[in-house]
């Protein structure tokens, strides 16, 4: 996918600043072909070019008309791209070339045009939207009958229906210029052959170009343009909060069913909503019957909802026990003021059994206006597809059981009849009828009722052994048995429906709850993304991937199953979904050749990434009725993912800030600590040149030693900060360790007597001898630096119940109270007079870093008598070693 980012041309920048990034669309609207839209557009374009605007022609159909052709001259024409299709070549507008050319204004004829298969977008208006998004202004043309919401209206009086339509929202933000000529003149032009008409359509068009039709179309076009102006003015009023006098509170609701006239219903509702300037919602009520719908019927529901959303409606699918109550509840919740329903095309038998939806709806929503629209001509002609319901007649076993029950009752009845001479044996038959009706449904119930009647008649009614009924009283018995079967089965069915529905919505709720539970237990982003994919794959029984945007296209971050790989076209679709914040791929309106459906993961901050779903059989990844569930799952996933990313960002910022602080401290420390000894060395050398003084050579040596220690400390600190301490633990004798440390620090500790109080019998400890050596050296160095001159430094080891302690005690100013733990922080140097003592402040941080890596505790405290500081290393029992019996081993 090409980058659609603007090059920073000064002109483009200015244009961007003026309109906040998005290009403007101007549409030349005509009532009919031949009114001169293209001509008008080109003249306008020429004017713009003369005024200095960078104009190019994206695509213009001149249809061989000379005056039009003439106008295209002088314009730069972007060559069309060739697309091979079924043996011949189609040419389409080259959108990538235009994006690369970055003109200020592009002329694009025929907004409603359908692109050749294999193009990036199925429709040209989608190309135009992409150009607008890229900040390019577009001039385009359209005839009134191609506007989605007017399509039906035009078709109703011209009897010509065009398939190529443009959603109203495209025009809602556009400037509209009506290209208008009187009908008589247009007819003249038609006769003069100045109007291009595709040959195959010419017959139908004779009727189309009648004067009355043209007048009506002209009126429509003018009205639509006026409406656009109206809407724009309204937006202005709203934006500037000038007045609150528009029809507040009107809300329109349209019920979408699987009935074929749903599309017409949607368009009609759009017109109504526009007229009322009301927001509108298209809702599909999902009942138990919805699950019996054929795939074609499901598709038609999905198509209707998609159309509605394209026309600007909010869409929803609501599960409910029945259509009327669901619709009524939703209407009240959504505070709808108008409900639009279609006149039912159902049989009188259906309405008899289920009741008329319209009647019940009108009764249940008394305060809401209900519009009942008839099915439109041509559409209702297709009869509803008869559904193959294999469950209708039920399982043959049900009938067998029913028959057995009847037989049993008959046998029992014969027995009782023989013994007791009972009159009311008929009542016994109620039992099998009720059982069959409630367990097996209406048909099995009726079957049992009929069988019971026959058995009763045959075995008990005189004359027994025949099916003749002599007594009219007994006819009532038969009717009652059948009636019981009907009533019982209806009740039982309703109970079953409710239970099923409860189960299904419980399942959906459980899915949602399970989903968020799975997501919240993840520890990091990768895990979370994998969990999202796993859950989506499970819930939709599909393959799932998750991609995040990156510098060079979307990157796969999680996949279930993990071997999922994406082709170039899929990556393009994913990229599209990320860039445009819209679904792409299979089942969407963009890049449909992909097997995958990509949905953006979006939050208030924008698009975080994209989720792709595909089915193993390359079918539609998500059914229309699952869409709402997918949406809420994706919303949840996006929120959790965003939270995790924010947390990570915050941590990153915190770390960076800390690192910056350390770096600044290090720099000041380094410059101080390296320069001081260097200065002395330089000065001493200069002195040496003049006269050879052994004392000064000693100074050079000592300072060089200091530098050396400092470099060692820097290296050590780098190891601690990198968190990459490799430990070489071995049994260590504290006597050895202390002796080595004292030996190595003898120069730094000059002037201090070292008192060793380390009992030789202390247990061996498990430490890394090298790291431990550095700990001790730094502690001794610290003591030597802060202790008062000529005071002793004590190294004292002791055994306690908790382990072993090793303390280094000095006599001096001690540690400022309250800072005992702070002094172990990197570069924390004690304020005040200590500053003059030099030292990097790294030493104690190294002690703490190394000691903790080995499991040794470090504590600082002040001594009272004599006054000074004490640093204590504590070795817990776990670090101590039992002494082996050395002589008995070989």
């Amino acid at each position, binding site marked *: 996918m090409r980058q659609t980012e603007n090059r920073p041309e000064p002109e483009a920048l200015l244009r961007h600043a003026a309109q906040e990034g998005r290009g403007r669309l101007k549409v030349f609207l005509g009532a009919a072909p031949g009114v001169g839209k293209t001509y008008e557009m080109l003249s306008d374009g020429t004017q713009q070019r003369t005024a200095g605007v960078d104009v190019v022609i994206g695509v213009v159909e001149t249809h061989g008309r000379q005056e039009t052709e003439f106008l295209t001259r002088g314009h730069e024409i972007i060559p069309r791209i060739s697309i091979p299709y079924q043996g011949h070549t189609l040419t389409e507008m080259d959108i990538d070339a235009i994006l690369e050319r970055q003109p200020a204004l592009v002329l694009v004829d025929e907004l409603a045009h359908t692109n050749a298969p294999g193009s990036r977008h199925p429709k040209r208006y989608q190309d135009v939207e992409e150009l607008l998004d890229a900040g390019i202004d577009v001039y385009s043309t359209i005839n009134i009958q191609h506007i989605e919401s007017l399509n039906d209206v035009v078709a109703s009086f011209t009897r010509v229906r065009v398939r190529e339509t443009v959603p109203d929202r495209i025009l809602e933000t556009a400037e509209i210029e009506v290209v208008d000529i009187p009908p008589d003149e247009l007819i003249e032009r038609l006769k003069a052959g100045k109007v291009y008409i595709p040959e195959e359509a010419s017959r139908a068009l004779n009727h189309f170009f009648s004067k009355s039709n043209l007048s009506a179309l002209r009126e429509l076009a003018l009205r639509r343009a006026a409406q656009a102006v109206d809407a724009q003015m309204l937006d202005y009023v709203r934006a500037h909060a000038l007045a609150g006098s528009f029809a507040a509170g009107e809300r329109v609701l349209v019920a979408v069913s699987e009935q074929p006239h749903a599309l017409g219903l949607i368009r009609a509702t759009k017109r109504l909503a526009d007229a009322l300037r009301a927001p509108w919602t298209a809702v599909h009520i999902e009942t138990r019957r919805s699950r019996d719908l054929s795939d074609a019927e499901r598709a038609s529901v999905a198509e209707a909802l998609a159309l509605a959303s394209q026309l600007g409606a909010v869409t929803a699918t609501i599960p409910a026990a029945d259509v009327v109550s669901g619709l009524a509840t939703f209407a009240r919740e959504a505070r709808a003021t108008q409900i639009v329903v279609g006149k039912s095309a159902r049989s009188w038998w259906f309405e008899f059994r289920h009741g008329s939806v319209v009647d019940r709806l009108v009764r249940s929503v008394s305060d809401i206006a209900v519009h009942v629209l008839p099915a439109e001509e041509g559409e209702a002609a297709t009869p509803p597809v008869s559904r193959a319901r294999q469950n209708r007649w039920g399982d043959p076993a049900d009938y067998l059981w029913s028959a057995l029950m009847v037989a049993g009752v008959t046998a029992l009845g014969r027995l009782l009849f023989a013994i007791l001479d009972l009159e009311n044996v008929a009542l016994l038959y109620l039992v099998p009828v009720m059982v069959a009706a409630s367990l097996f449904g209406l048909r099995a119930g009726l079957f049992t009722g009929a069988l019971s009647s026959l058995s009763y008649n045959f075995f008990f009614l005189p004359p027994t052994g025949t099916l003749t009924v002599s007594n009219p009283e007994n006819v009532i018995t038969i009717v009652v048995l059948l009636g019981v079967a009907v009533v019982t089965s209806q009740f039982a069915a309703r109970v079953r429906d409710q239970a099923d529905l409860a189960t299904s919505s419980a399942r959906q709720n459980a899915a949602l709850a399970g989903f968020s539970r799975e997501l919240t237990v993840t520890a990091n982003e990768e895990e979370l993304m994998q969990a999202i994919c796993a859950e989506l794959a499970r819930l939709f029984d599909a393959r799932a991937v998750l991609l995040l945007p990156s510098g060079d296209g979307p990157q796969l971050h999680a996949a279930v199953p993990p071997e999922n790989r994406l082709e170039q076209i899929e990556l393009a679709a994913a990229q599209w979904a990320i860039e445009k914040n819209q679904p792409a791929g299979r089942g969407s309106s963009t890049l449909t050749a992909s097997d995958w459906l990509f949905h953006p993961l979006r939050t208030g901050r924008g698009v975080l990434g994209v989720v792709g779903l595909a089915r193993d059989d390359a079918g539609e990844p998500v059914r229309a009725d699952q869409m709402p569930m997918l949406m809420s799952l994706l919303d949840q996933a996006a929120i959790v993912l965003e939270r995790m990313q924010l947390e990570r960002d915050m941590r990153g910022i915190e770390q960076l800030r800390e690192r910056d602080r350390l770096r600044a401290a290090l720099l000041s420390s380094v410059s101080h600590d390296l320069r001081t000894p260097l200065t002395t060395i330089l000065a001493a050398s200069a002195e040496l040149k003049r006269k050879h003084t052994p004392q000064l050579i000693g100074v050079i040596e000592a300072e060089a030693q200091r530098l050396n220690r400092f470099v060692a400390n820097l290296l050590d600190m780098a190891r601690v900060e990198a968190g990459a301490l490799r430990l070489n633990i071995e*049994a260590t*004798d504290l006597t050895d360790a202390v*002796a080595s440390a*004292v030996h190595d620090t003898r120069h730094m500790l000059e002037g201090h007597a070292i008192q060793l109080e380390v009992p*030789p019998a202390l247990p*061996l400890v498990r430490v*890394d*001898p*090298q790291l431990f050596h550095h700990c001790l050296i730094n502690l001794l160095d610290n003591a030597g630096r802060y202790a008062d001159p000529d005071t002793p430094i004590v190294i004292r080891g002791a055994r306690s119940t908790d382990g072993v302690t090793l303390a280094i005690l000095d006599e001096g100013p001690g540690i400022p109270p309250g800072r005992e733990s702070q002094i172990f922080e990197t570069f924390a140097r004690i304020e005040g007079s200590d500053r003059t003592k030099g030292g990097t402040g790294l030493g104690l941080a190294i002690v703490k870093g190394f000691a903790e890596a080995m499991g040794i505790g470090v504590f600082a405290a002040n001594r009272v008598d004599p006054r000074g500081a004490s640093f204590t290393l504590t070795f817990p029992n776990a670090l101590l070693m039992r002494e*082996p019996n050395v002589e008995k081993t070989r």
Partner: protein
Amino acid sequence: MTARNKVLVVDDEQQIRRLLRAALVRADFDVAEAEDARRALTALETEKPDVVLLDLGLPDRDGLELVPLIKQRSQATLLVVSAREATDQKVTALDLGADDYVTKPFDTDELLARVRAALRHRVTAQGGVPSVTVGDVEIDLVRRRIFKAGVEVHLTPKEYGVIEVLARFPGRVITHAQLLKSVWTHEIEHHVEYLRVVIRNIRQKLETDPQQPRLIINELGIGYRLSGGD
């Protein structure tokens, strides 16, 4: 006075070679130089040095590979002089046959002392010295007896074993593994605690102040050395 000992300095840093040459010449050694592994091996043949000071960071080859090669081709005493501080590098070099290890930056006097000690080992190893004296401690390697200030001190077999190994190469670092292998069997090669206990016991018996050992010096994480006994 025999002929002066010759030292071959192998280091790619010219400043270091210059510094070492000055120090060695002052200490009455002959000096040869090599700046990489190839030239070092050639010099080994042509110059026939008594001591090799080897830097591990050579441009053409890792110095550690050179250690066994030098030991195979010459009788020279080999001292590794390197900025590599990691103890495992030191132990590896010593176990490969290097006689000692000095870390950069070094104290020139200490380096010279190590070179002299190493040269003495050659004599010891060749002739077999009957006894070693360090301070007031005398180790009689023939009669296997130890005297402190003229008074015999009784050591256990392991204690004597350890001090005997150290005394055969006074001043030279003996790694933990080498000591453990000589005195115990292979199984406890990695159990340094045995060695620690034995050394502690020896110190109790032989050191004047066991808290500040002068006789047996600990090399952090590497091993022990018997004090040079100058």
